[in-house]
């Protein structure tokens, strides 16, 4: 699946998007996998309460299932308007 990062999540990880091969069942499982990869991922996902996630461009919860999802995006709370 495609995994996208925005704002300071993108800055910490150092890339805007990447392909990830995973068997993770939920967003939280995917976060645990990514966190285990490298220090920059651990830094980005240090506090998931400070993060938001969208699945196929719809806001979702961290316990949402990843079945059939093609695009996951992680970002800080939005500051539009």
């Amino acid at each position, binding site marked *: 699946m495609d995994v*996208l990062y*925005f*704002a*300071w999540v993108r800055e910490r990880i150092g890339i805007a998007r990447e392909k990830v091969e995973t068997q993770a069942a939920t967003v939280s499982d995917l976060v645990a996998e990514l966190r285990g990869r490298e220090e920059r991922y651990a830094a980005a996902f240090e506090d998931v309460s400070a993060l938001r996630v*969208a699945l196929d*461009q*719809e*806001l979702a919860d961290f316990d949402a299932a990843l079945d059939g999802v093609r*695009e996951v*995006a992680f*970002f*800080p*709370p*939005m*500051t*539009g*308007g």
Partner: protein
Amino acid sequence: MKVLVQAERFDLGAQNAAFAAGHRDMGAIVTFTGIVRDLPDDPLVAMEIEHYPAMTEKAIAAMAQEATERFNLGDVLVIHRYGRLEPGEMIMMVATAARHRRDAFEAATYLMDYLKSRAPFWKREITAKGAAWVASTDEDEAALSRW
């Protein structure tokens, strides 16, 4: 309903006039315009707005649709910019048309509350000392609990 997500400046006067002229059957038009603050002693050099292109229009259109049903709107317009903006530039606008003023006001307030905290934009303030992401506020999050 019209949703525009663009880097370019927009013409507030022309947009507001056209929106109002297109809704002679509605008695009440409300607009909100957000502007990058331009204060005398403020170190702000620019505001940079990042967004999530594949999601932004879809998310705003869903909010606009929800506002339309909830407040019986005749029409709604949202324009939101991204990219680099100088102090004094307009960031975004919403316009709502309704039969009754209360609906037009509430719909515009609702849309602003949702755009602030649920539309995928991230603001960064640039000063001579560097750049800093704008933090979301508890107040903005709390504003949503009203709806």
